[in-house]
């Protein structure tokens, strides 16, 4: 069972410390317990959603805002550049927002 680390109890994402496949039950550890079923492959070091998050809602890691959801995100979904926007600018769209 792949594991994911929750760093703060405010967080709506957990960071995988093993690579996970779609359909795997992922064990949460750290500041939250339980499992979440992965809706997609999530590589080591990437984030999985652990709380139902609507579009435009803030994404919390370390108990702090790291960006905003650009689409609704279900628990178990891979959380990354395809569904999260920086509030401060993004390197792969260099210069697009500052």
């Amino acid at each position: 069972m792949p594991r994911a680390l929750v760093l703060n109890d405010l967080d709506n994402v957990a960071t995988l410390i093993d690579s996970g496949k779609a359909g795997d039950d992922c064990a949460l550890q750290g500041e939250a317990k339980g499992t979440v079923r992965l809706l997609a492959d999530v590589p080591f070091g990437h984030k999985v959603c652990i709380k139902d998050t609507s579009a435009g809602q803030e994404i919390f890691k370390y108990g702090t805002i790291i960006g905003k959801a650009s689409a609704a995100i279900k628990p178990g979904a891979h959380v990354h550049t395809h569904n999260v926007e920086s509030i401060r600018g993004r390197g792969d769209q260099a210069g697009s927002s500052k």
Partner: protein
Amino acid sequence: MSATFLGYPRKNGSIGVRNWVGVISIMDNCNPVTRAICNAVDGTVPITTLFVRGQYGRDLEITYNTLAGMGSNPNIASVLLIGLEEMTSEEVAKRIRPTGKRVEIINLQPDGTINAVANGTRIAMRMAIEASGIRRVSCPASSLVIGVECGGSDTTSGLSCNPAIGRMADRLVDDGGTIIISETSEFFGAEHLFAARAVDDKIRKEFVDKVVGFEQDAMKMGLDIRGTNPTPDNIRGGLTTIEEKALGAMAKAGTRPLVGVLDYGEPPVKKGLHFMATPAPAVESMTAFAAGGCQLIFFGTGVGNPIGNMVSPTVKVSGNVNTLRTMPDNIDVDVSELIEKGSKVTDVGDRLYGYTMEVASGTRTTSEVLDIRETAISRFGPTI
């Protein structure tokens, strides 16, 4: 109940966690004599420098203040300055004397290096014996100033060592102590989040001005840090936004309010969390911590960076099981249980805080025992 440790009381009310005689080079050409004296006398630490000759203006002022700041650090019982001639030696001496500690000067002119080594060795020997008469007494954690640093960072840093150090930082601030975080460039993209923690608008503006000013300096050199972060490598590794990347580094400062903003090597006058504007390279940043009066430094590392500071014992913390296997001699605290066993950051951080009091009371660090230590004062202008 607040934590306590056993420390060395100094005349100006500060508390040392070590009790060394500092032998300080006033300029680059004095370093060989400084090292010769330290090789001859147990209980001394050599504090060397590069340049000074050919420096001017703000750049020279910061160098003098940094040398004097390291001499003034509470871990130093007394100071022997090794200079070339009287005038520059006095520039540093006069900045250390207000601490009330003994300051002696040996100049290489006019009697040459053999006499300087002989005379300096005699003085340092007496100073070391004098210092050894000072006893540790019980001191409150509030007398500690700790610098938090990271280097050789990887995915494990933001998940283990940095949050654990952050919890230690919160505990120290709650006990009335002081934490300093540095490395200005690491805040790019998340400066607004850290700025939001400032206690008032003045501190908030000072902090943002430092980060924005540094970013503009980088831009002038053709480096667009914000526009190129997170890098494609970071995104492949799972970092989604520049905020997330910066937060991994900022996690080591904990969560308490920002009470002060400091220049390179400037000592804090308040208790609580401070930011110090320094370049990112660890040796330069830690030299500034030591000059600012930090008695200890906590250093989170992922892939492994062994270096420590000469004056502030440096505690290396890692949560990367590979690094803990391949370079265990250079790591003081293993926090891999955060990743491997699912331990809580609060529990691991609380234990780290307990260990802080042990190191403050005399438990030695790997970089101290192995003498993997270095000094580098940052430059803020060219040599003429």
